[in-house]
């Protein structure tokens, strides 16, 4: 196969631009990969090709053999071939798209003002581009009506353009087959079989892939117009899979999580449970709003300086031995925070008494990829703790031995061992308990000093997922005024205890970590920011147990 200079793969020509393709790849897929925009509805890279919406028409002026295609071709179904010339913008193509768009709008209710998809609706976009603005349809439109198909998504069938993405999703992606196409001809419509509600755990994706407002998320309906939402890349912290998401927010309130494509992690999908984790990000009632200190048995608001100096004073008085110091952390903390907490213990107290819960967890084995997105490990950074060699498990003898000592100073990050009453009882007796966290819990009740941290939507950080891929989050919303990111708190704390390291950002901490921790060596922050990167030195036992998927 002749290769053009500078290309590793065979190429073809789209609008005078050379585009690489893999043998067997379709025109549309190759074009999208190169950032060319060809309008389409039914095509989805993760599902089979049906070529039914007819919107992706292109003019193949040379099929690679010198001859033009006899008529406009659908780019989604035509193989790219060496030397092919494709035009996507000529008048013939525009005309073709215009008429397909006209047909699509013939029975569409055009209720954009009350439709939640408005603003992120491809039908709306292309209607603006290719629609005539005037309808020649004089007859009453088809009415299929809405259907109640379950708790997570709403189905308004009048808006449906019969692209069949949702149907293919339940057949090819989840394998649950509870959704399908009914009737035929212009009465063709979508519904669940036998009026049953939807059962799969990934219904939100059907709202994502629906190009129009036929399927929308009930959770998001009537809350905000899509164009008002600002979007930031982040990681879902619902479990250790670490699906890539965008946090969508407006006026410092988070409205939803949407999956962000990452072929190495979640592809295009996100589970419903993950989507619902947005709720806790808006939680204010149980949040720790400011640093708190115990004055005469009661927690009262204090300033940061007061908190730090009180801790420093107390630690100085106690002059604890290494075995009299303990740090507990959960695996919701980022790699940087775990690293700094470990470092604080080592630098100030020469202790490595740091523990986190690491129970075994289950991973579904399934012929459908999407089922592997849900794990029973509902913490985002277990692998990070393992990579930093933080010891674990409530039942481990080491922890039991550690809490038997006369404890003097205890640091608690987040909400570890929440169900372990025994551990909490033991630690209650310690001379100084410092709790860093975002929410009030049983630890803040027994703590002497409570330091107000930030939730992951409010700060930067990196998490290591179950495949030991390090991924970064962005700041999405502004944090509460009197909270600080945990990495900063730990840094300041260690400075006030007499061992200062100054870092200017979470990325700075990450860089220090790559120098000091072998597992994280050779990673750079810039490299992991887009799609993450797997650790070079992996932990062997991740505690995973493979089980059969329940579908």
């Amino acid at each position, binding site marked *: 196969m002749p290769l053009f200079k500078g290309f590793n793969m065979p190429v073809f020509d789209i609008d005078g631009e050379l585009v690489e393709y893999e043998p067997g790849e379709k025109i549309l897929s190759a074009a999208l990969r190169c950032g060319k925009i060809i309008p389409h509805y039914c095509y989805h890279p993760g599902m089979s*090709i*049906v*070529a*039914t*919406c*007819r*919107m992706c*028409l292109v003019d193949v002026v040379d099929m690679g053999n010198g001859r033009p295609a006899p*008529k*406009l071709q659908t780019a989604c*179904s035509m*193989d790219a071939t060496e030397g092919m010339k494709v035009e996507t913008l000529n008048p013939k193509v525009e005309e*073709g798209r215009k*008429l*397909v768009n*006209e*047909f*699509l709008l*013939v*029975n569409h209710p055009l209720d954009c003002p009350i439709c939640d998809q408005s603003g992120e609706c491809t039908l709306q976009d292309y209607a603006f581009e290719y629609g005539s603005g005037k309808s*020649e*349809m*004089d*007859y009453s439109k088809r009415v299929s009506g809405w259907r109640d198909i379950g708790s997570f998504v709403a189905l308004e069938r009048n808006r449906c*353009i*019969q692209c*069949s993405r949702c149907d293919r999703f339940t057949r090819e992606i989840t394998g649950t087959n509870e959704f399908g*196409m009914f*009737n*035929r*001809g*212009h*009465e*063709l419509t979508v519904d669940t079989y036998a009026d049953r509600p939807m059962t799969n755990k990934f219904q939100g994706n059907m709202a994502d892939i629906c190009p129009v407002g036929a399927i929308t998320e009930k959770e998001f309906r009537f809350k905000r117009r899509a164009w008002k939402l600002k979007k930031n890349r982040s990681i879902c912290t619902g479990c250790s899979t670490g699906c890539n998401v965008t946090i969508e927010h407006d006026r410092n309130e988070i409205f939803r999580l949407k999956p962000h494509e990452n072929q190495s992690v979640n592809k295009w999908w996100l589970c419903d449970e993950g989507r619902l984790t947005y709720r806790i990000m808006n939680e204010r009632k149980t949040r720790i709003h400011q640093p708190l200190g115990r004055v005469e048995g009661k927690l009262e608001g204090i300033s940061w300086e007061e908190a730090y100096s009180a801790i420093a004073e107390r630690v100085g008085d106690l002059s604890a031995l290494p075995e009299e110091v303990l740090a507990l952390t959960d695996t919701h903390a980022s790699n940087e925070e775990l690293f700094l907490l470990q470092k604080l213990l080592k630098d100030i107290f020469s202790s490595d008494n740091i523990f986190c819960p690491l129970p075994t967890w289950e991973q579904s084995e399934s012929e459908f990829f999407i089922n592997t997105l849900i794990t029973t490990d509902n913490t985002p950074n277990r692998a990070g703790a393992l990579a930093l060699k933080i010891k674990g498990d409530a039942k481990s003898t080491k922890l039991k031995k550690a809490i038997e000592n006369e404890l003097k100073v205890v640091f608690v990050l987040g909400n570890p061992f929440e169900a372990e009453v025994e551990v909490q009882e033991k630690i209650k007796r310690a001379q100084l308990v410092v709790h860093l966290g975002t929410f009030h819990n049983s630890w803040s009740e027994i703590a002497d000093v409570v330091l107000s941290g930030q939730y992951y939507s409010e700060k930067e950080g990196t998490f290591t997922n179950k495949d030991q891929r390090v991924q970064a989050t962005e700041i999405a919303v502004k944090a509460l005024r009197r909270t600080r990111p945990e990495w900063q708190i730990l840094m300041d704390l260690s400075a006030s205890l007499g061992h200062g390291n100054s870092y200017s950002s979470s990325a700075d901490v990450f860089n220090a970590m790559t120098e000091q921790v072998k597992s994280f060596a050779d990673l750079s922050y810039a490299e992991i920011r887009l799609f993450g990167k797997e650790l070079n030195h992996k932990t062997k036992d991740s505690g995973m147990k493979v089980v059969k998927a329940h579908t």
Partner: protein
Amino acid sequence: MAEETLVLFKNIRNPKYDKSLSAYKKSGGFKSLKKVFGMKPDEVVQEVKESGIRGRGGAGFPTGLKWSFMAKGTGKPSYLVANADESEPGTCKDRELMLKDPHMFLEGLMIGCYAIGCHHGYVYVRGEYFPSIKSLNEAVDELYADGLLGLDPMGSGFNLDITIHTGAGAYICGEESALLDSLEGKRGHPRVKPPFPAVSGFNGCPTSVNNVETLACMPFILGDNGVEDFKNFGPQNNSGTHLVSLSGHVNRPGVYELRMDVNMKDIIYEFGGGIRNGKKLKGVIPGGSSSPVMTADEVDVLYNFDDLAKKGTMMGSSAMMVFDEDTDVVKLLHRITRFYAHESCGQCTPCREGTHWSRQIIRDFLNGNGSEEKLLRLNRVGGNMMGTTLCALGDAAAMPIQSFVKKFPEEFRKYYATV
């Protein structure tokens, strides 16, 4: 009076013929199959190629060529599926064959199976054809009882099974890929092509889908001197006899077996006995409802694939529908369009929306709400379906609309002309 040429109908036209296996054998049946079992499969395909037979289902694709496209060496079984889902309005030829002489068709199917190395042939019969289904099932039972089907028929070592599968009455399942979907137990939706069925068809295996009449020609073609005789039945590229389903306002409607060089006029006036009640001819739909209509002035043409194509229409499944001067063309078009609106599978946009929309426009004319603007719109909506859909149903719906508007505009104008 012109004569029929009897090849496919040689038994059916015999009043004493009782369609049993013994009667069929007595008439020379299964001699060709015996001959074929002595040949190599490639030689059979070559003979069929040489005969020049073109598919009788409507598209007129050369059958030998179709068989030679079958993917080989894939390690998967091959399948031959007989398309007996005869649903094109006006067509009733396959029904005659299956009902009155099923063994000829089944022998053809068996020859086809041998030619492409298929050990399990399927017949997908239109669901409404109850008598034909019964007749086919009885015939297949007879063949199994006689040992012509099953293990080692005629000592050939070529095991062969045939299954009769009934459809559920959807026009779209006559489209070959939709037929295969339906045969697999799915909704009958046309598939994206390529891959063509010859590469990935029934259950993802190489499959050839052939019309009943095409297969019924095989015993003759592979009989003694069959190829030469077959070629002589018509002009070049249009070999063989074909079954013409003549219907409409003629005195003697019916299925006639004709050579390919018979003039359409003769079919209407001699075989059909002229227009009934002594009326004048207004037009003819020459090849099933999807073919572009012809006016009375255009019918002086040889009735075969190429000559009709030159006239801008098509022979399709050889179903002529004749209508006289009293016919309301708008009503006729409304009925045709209603059919396509009802039978569209609905998966692709232009056909799903276009067939229904054009039906609504035509209904407007009938209700006295027509206008010149609507006539133009009808033509435009019809045209927009042409060549833009996944399968041929969009074209099938568009062609009558466009041709009726082009050839009978005055008929539409009658509905809104201000006097």
